[in-house]
């Protein structure tokens, strides 16, 4: 097992001319290969800020983010794209892209100036589509398929990018329970079969507890990373929501409403 990304005394937040807003301090997280790691926390707690900082989009207030033992802010865009791929929540702009073309765009960090796909590129694209079981959609347009299928296509694109680390921002947001579960299972299968590390943020805490190898919990007071069962026995989930009517049932491993 190898550490792919780690944070060292990382502080995240926003700096403006007037003031510095610190969202979280002294984060020492480590993302290891072959692990499915979920990031949970209430709305507005700073999950997106954390993801933006560890993907190098936003500068940390202090501390470092190390990707393969090298500071993430010193990567050039192309090297970074070969080590880290993203699945975002934003809606795709209108276009006529087919599913195959969309997945193939993941090969951009490796293709020549005009983007020609070599036979190796095509092989990687086909592997990614096979792993996510979307081969039958290859010639469909990206706007013709369902939300659940599109999410798989976007994951296939990230797989085609062939990076040791994939980060997904709320991949299950628009999906029903069936598709949420199948997506989580897919992510789990990918970490096991490819030894990649996959980090995703989510609000589906019950499912995340059951399927993740590790979880990162963000609350206003602390940020903690551990295996789900340890987090339950430590009682970390009780402080997640500041509401007396939402209680964590440690035995069932889920939240209940009183």
């Amino acid at each position, binding site marked *: 097992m190898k550490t792919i990304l780690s944070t060292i005394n990382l502080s995240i937040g926003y700096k403006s001319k007037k003031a510095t807003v610190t969202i979280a301090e002294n984060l020492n997280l480590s993302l290891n290969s072959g692990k499915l790691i979920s990031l949970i926390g209430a709305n507005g707690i700073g999950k997106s800020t954390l993801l933006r900082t560890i993907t190098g989009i936003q500068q940390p207030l202090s501390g470092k983010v190390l990707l393969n033992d090298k500071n993430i802010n010193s990567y050039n*865009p192309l090297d970074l794209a070969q080590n880290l791929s993203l699945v975002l929540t934003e809606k795709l702009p209108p276009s006529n*892209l087919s599913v195959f073309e969309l997945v193939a765009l993941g090969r951009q960090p490796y293709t020549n100036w005009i983007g020609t796909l070599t036979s190796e590129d095509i092989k990687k694209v086909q592997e990614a589509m096979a792993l996510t079981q979307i081969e039958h959609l290859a010639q469909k347009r990206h706007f013709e398929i369902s939300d659940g299928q599109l999410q798989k296509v976007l994951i296939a694109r990230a797989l085609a990018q062939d990076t040791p680390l994939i980060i997904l921002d709320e991949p299950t947001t628009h999906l029903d329970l069936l598709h949420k579960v199948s997506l989580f299972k897919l992510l789990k299968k990918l970490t096991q079969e490819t030894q990649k590390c996959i980090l995703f943020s989510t609000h589906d805490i019950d499912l995340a507890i059951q399927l993740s190898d590790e979880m990162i919990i963000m609350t206003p007071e602390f940020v903690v990373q551990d295996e789900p069962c340890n987090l339950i026995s430590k009682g970390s989930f009780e402080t997640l929501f500041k509401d007396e009517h939402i209680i964590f049932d440690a035995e069932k491993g889920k939240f209940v409403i009183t």
Partner: protein
Amino acid sequence: MANKKRNTILFIVLGLGLLLMFFASLSLGSVNIPFRDVYESLTGGQASKSTWEYIIINYRLPKSFTAVLVGTGLSISGLLMQTLFRNPLAGPYVLGLSSGASLGVAFVILGAGFLPSFLSAFVLSSYGIVIASTFGSTMVLLLVLIVSQRLRDTMAILIVGLMFGSFTTAIVSVLTYFSTAEQLQKFTFWSMGSLGNLSWTTLSILAVCVGIGLLLSASSIKPLNALLLGENYAKSMGLSFKKARLIIIFATSILAGSITAFAGPIAFIGLAVPHIAKLTFQTSNHTILFWSTLFFGAIIMLFCDIVSQMPGFDVTLPINAITSLIGAPVVIWLLVRKRNFQ
């Protein structure tokens, strides 16, 4: 793959269409010259009448080349803008680039009187007009870009473009109060658009400008494909977004600016042609779209030129009117026909 075969056939058809249109534009006009004589004068042989040879070499050939350059340049600049702004309705005319270029030219033609004579001679030369026009269109594009970063709403960007159009018209009408009848006439003729006023020398300047613009566009094919997934995905796939955007903007400005300088503001080609290419080839892949837009741009511009010459008549209609007459309905038809307007 079936798509590949279909594309090859389409490109062959387009290539033949372009050749046919090019010959037709040489042959048709106030004087109709038979194809055989066109061929003879082009290959250095003897045409049946020596005046025909003169008309073809010194008048129609430069005009047809201009039409090809204008058609390809404007269409490609439209394609670049539609992808960059993620907006199917973007184009050099709609976003006010042509207006910006007009403003630059208006300042030069109408304002030259205020300058010392040696300066006014320079600014009124072809180079001066090209520089003013490119400068004007770049300024507008930069402003649109600044606005588009503040407003995520794409409709707002189009409205800003329209506002620039009105703004330019207003400034031009203010300028006309301070200009002579001769200057005013020059500007009015310029603003109606014309493909026929270029000598071989000015044509070569235009060709260099359009050539640079097209080369830069070709080098942006891969970034443009990445941008189909939006700015953030493009960055995550290793694209240096700022650099790519700068190249795309510069290419668009030099294309729209230089063409507007020489041929006047020409409407709708930049907006309509990329859509015709997208619909015909059913793809968003810019490797294919780039070439198909080039072909369609040249063919449609040559066609508009033939129509504006009114074969068999003595009058020439302003080219801008023809492109609007053809382009505007095409855009409406596209909007109505295709609900998922890509």
